[in-house]
């Protein structure tokens, strides 16, 4: 039996656990597992009921279109965000009652912060960021797709495979309790013999390979596929941040792949990289992990900064202030972020001088970040500002992110870090940078670019309320954690005994509920806007009087992006054309366009990688071998496919493009005063605001 099913048996689900040992904690676990099962079953039923299987397969899962792949990334990120936030709320709820012991077992609390951290960083922030890069970069540089569209599918497949493993771990077996960093020797086989760390290892390693490949793809795309005239220093700032993030992905993801596979070798084959005996050295793990871990936060933050640059310029109707300095700051951050990793373990026992060097490097990285904040503020200065939803997020970001950055500079001082290391002060700090920068940035990006993808705007009134809720909820949840940290409350602790913590813990618990409301409001906004999409429609493609190339095409963007590849003569290319007075010109002629054909390649690799990860976790060796074998077979088979492209005839493109141009010419453009009214069909009229 065990050769057939490995470590699997009937007792590994939370349902059996809840049945045998009923308690609040085990019931919560069973409830979470049933949510996964019910959600999956409901999805299957809905797809069947509405006969969506075929469109799903044909238009999405096998599509090599960068926009669709990007949308799938973002959907993945939002689904995982829902799980991550719910876990955060459950943890805060538990701690609110923790003086009386709380309702979760400490084992369960451990699982929660581990899955929460892993999910938020690798399966929420990464998919959202990678999704936006996928969608926006080709549109901004005047390309028709990524350099390697099928590789792009594969990246998505591998990332999704990691997420699948995390979801499966809710239902079958238990996840690791070792934190998102998974430090050995605790996560070694001696102290954690169960399947938990194995789930972590394979989820991280498989999705990490996907992210590396994304980095390769983005870098090649930005270097090689720009439209004629789009020199590097004419690229929009989002593309610049994407380029730096791409290079960072290429260099920062391999370390985590290696460290998790080394941990796997220790666990599966008895190697001694990080064990307590026979020369193993866990400090090496900390080093390798954070060589990934620190750059990773900037991989997430840089593209979010890119969104802020676009948002600040567009909604102030001004050219971005200090383009050159923003580019240099982006590059500086990308480089310096590889030189600070040691600040995550100042207390590990290396010499003072090493600590000082890394402390100083850490403080230095705040400088280019500060430059950027000033540039954005100067962009707003004397602009014609509209307080749209993305701008509210931007203002929230300005204030909150600066606080988070400053607490980071405080932590960069090793002597201070010794005092607050492993306390909630740190938890407050990193949420304080990740949420206002990355999460708000992505939410702002969703509002900003949604119309480009789907052809209608998101409702502004609901959007603004959502933004305010996020900001308030964030403050209530995380500012108290600074206080708690300074009072000495450790992180990753299920319970506490000091009653003076309680008021702050209660405030944080209440705040988490506000955050949950904000998340629900995101979904409400999207749902409401879909319902009233006719009133919000902006088919002409330029709802915000945009400045960069992506606003010069219809909404939703056609499969081929650009009917004719544009020639670029300036920064803010579309703005320049508008200033010249003739942004919409009918091309003299149209050509056939070759686009990548749909293929099931990425999907096959996704299934194979998911099954392989699952089989490895449960030691089902025959299945491991079988699913592993699929990978080279699929790759080799792909090499023999001859026709990988399909031609879209020029007539079809001409027909679509001319229809759109005619609509543009027969529509009245709106000024910015009418931006938020049904009159806005996506055609901007010049208005008399300050330049």
């Amino acid at each position, binding site marked *: 039996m065990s050769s057939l099913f490995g470590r699997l048996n009937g007792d590994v689900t939370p349902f059996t656990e809840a049945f045998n040992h009923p308690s609040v904690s085990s019931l919560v676990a069973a409830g979470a597992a049933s949510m996964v099962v019910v959600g999956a079953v409901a999805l299957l039923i809905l797809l069947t009921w509405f006969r969506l299987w075929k469109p799903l397969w044909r238009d999405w899962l096998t599509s090599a279109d960068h926009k669709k792949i990007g949308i799938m990334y973002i959907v993945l990120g939002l689904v995982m965000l829902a799980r991550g936030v719910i876990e955060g709320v459950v943890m805060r709820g538990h701690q609110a009652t923790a003086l009386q012991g709380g309702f979760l077992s400490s084992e369960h609390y451990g699982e929660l912060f581990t899955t929460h951290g892993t999910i938020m960083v690798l399966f929420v922030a990464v998919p959202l960021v990678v999704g936006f890069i996928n969608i926006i970069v080709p549109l901004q540089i005047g390309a028709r797709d990524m*350099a*390697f569209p099928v590789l792009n599918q594969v990246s998505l497949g591998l990332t999704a495979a990691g997420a699948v493993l995390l979801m499966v771990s809710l239902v079958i077996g238990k996840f690791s309790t070792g934190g998102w960093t998974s430090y050995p020797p605790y996560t070694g086989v001696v102290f954690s013999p169960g399947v938990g760390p194995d789930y972590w290892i394979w989820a991280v390693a498989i999705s990490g390979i996907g992210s*590396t*490949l994304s*980095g*390769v*793809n983005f*870098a*090649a795309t930005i*270097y*090689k*596929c720009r439209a004629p005239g789009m020199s590097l220093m004419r690229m929009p700032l989002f593309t610049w941040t994407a380029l730096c993030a791409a290079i960072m992905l*290429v*260099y920062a*993801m*391999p*370390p985590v*792949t*290696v*460290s998790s596979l*080394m941990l796997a*070798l*220790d666990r599966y*084959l*008895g*190697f*001694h*990289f990080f064990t307590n*005996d*026979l*020369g*193993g*050295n866990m400090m*090496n793990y900390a080093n*390798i992990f954070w*060589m990934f871990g620190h750059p990773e936060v900037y991989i997430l933050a840089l593209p979010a900064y890119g969104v802020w640059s676009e948002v600040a310029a567009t909604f102030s109707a001004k050219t971005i202030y200090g383009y050159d300095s923003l580019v240099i700051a982006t590059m500086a951050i990308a480089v310096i972020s590889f030189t600070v990793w040691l600040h995550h373990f100042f207390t590990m026992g290396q010499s003072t001088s090493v600590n000082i060097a890394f402390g100083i490097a850490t403080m230095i990285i705040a400088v280019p970040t500060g430059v950027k904040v000033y540039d954005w503020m100067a962009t707003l200065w004397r602009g014609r500002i509209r307080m749209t939803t993305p701008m509210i997020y931007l203002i929230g970001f300005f204030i909150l992110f600066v606080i988070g950055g400053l607490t980071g500079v405080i932590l960069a001082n090793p002597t201070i870090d010794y005092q607050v290391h492993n306390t909630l002060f740190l938890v407050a700090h990193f949420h304080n940078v990740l949420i206002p920068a990355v999460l708000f940035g992505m939410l702002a990006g969703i509002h900003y670019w949604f119309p480009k993808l789907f052809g209608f705007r998101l409702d502004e009134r609901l959007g603004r309320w959502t933004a305010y809720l996020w900001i308030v909820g964030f403050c209530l949840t995380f500012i108290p954690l600074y206080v708690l940290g300074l009072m000495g409350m450790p992180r990753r602790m299920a319970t506490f005994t000091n009653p003076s913590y309680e008021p702050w813990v209660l405030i944080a618990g209440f705040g988490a509920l506000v955050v949950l409301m904000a998340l629900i409001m995101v979904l409400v906004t999207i749902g409401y806007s879909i319902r009233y999409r006719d009133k919000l429609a902006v088919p002409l493609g330029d709802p915000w009087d945009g400045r960069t190339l992506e606003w010069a095409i219809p909404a939703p963007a056609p499969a081929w992006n650009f009917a004719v590849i544009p020639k670029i003569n300036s920064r803010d290319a579309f703005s320049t054309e508008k200033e010249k007075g003739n942004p919409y010109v009918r091309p003299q002629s149209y050509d056939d366009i070759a686009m990548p054909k749909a293929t099931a390649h990425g999907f096959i690799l996704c299934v194979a990688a998911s099954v392989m990860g699952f089989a490895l976790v449960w030691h089902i060796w025959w299945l491991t071998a079988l699913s592993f074998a699929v990978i*080279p077979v699929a790759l*080799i088979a792909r*090499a*023999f496919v*001859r026709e990988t492209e399909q031609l879209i005839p020029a007539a079809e493109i001409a027909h679509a493009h001319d229809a759109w141009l005619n609509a543009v010419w027969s529509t009245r453009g709106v000024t910015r005063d009418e931006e938020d009214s049904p009159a806005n069909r996506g055609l901007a009229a010049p208005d008399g605001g300050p330049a």
Partner: protein
Amino acid sequence: MNPNPYPKLHPGLNLGPAHGVAHEGSEAVLFGFWIFLMSDLIIFGILFATYAASTGPMAIAGGPRPTDLFDLVSVSIQTAFLLASSLTCGMAILAMKYGENVSRVKLWLVVTALLGAGFLTFELRDFASMMAHQGTPMRSAWLSSLYALVGLHGLHITMGLLWILTMLALIQVQRLSNKVKTRLLMFSLYWHFLDVIWIGIFSVVFLAGLV
């Protein structure tokens, strides 16, 4: 005004003017592959660093030491095999670039594969003899890092052999189509890259271990 309509696109191997579309078509792909190799280089870099940090007495943990296990003669033979295979790989590319001689390309690829297989045979023989003398990766941190580094290189060579076989089959079906040309260029980059890594292993692991 562009005097050379076929600029040299990337360091490494180019097809040149005679190959027209294939020359340009290989640009983005080869560039992407370069980037990919750089990320692979980071993986090796970390394993090199881990190895370098695991050579002290603590990491050897009372187990066998380099001098007990390494066989310089065998390692030198492996090195000879691998360097020679790089040469023959280059010959395959030249046969493609000048003359587009299909059978000669195939011949050189087969020779490359044989040399690679020779390398692997000696490497596995060494592993077996090390294991027979208590030199298993489970014995100490030093041995763990040794097997990880050298083994990963061996794994790359194995994948390279699989790649050669695939290329031979592909050439059989598609002759020297544009896609085949680009893939051959990628393969040769990969194969030379493994050579460079091996030089590092030879010096850092074997030579340094025996001094």
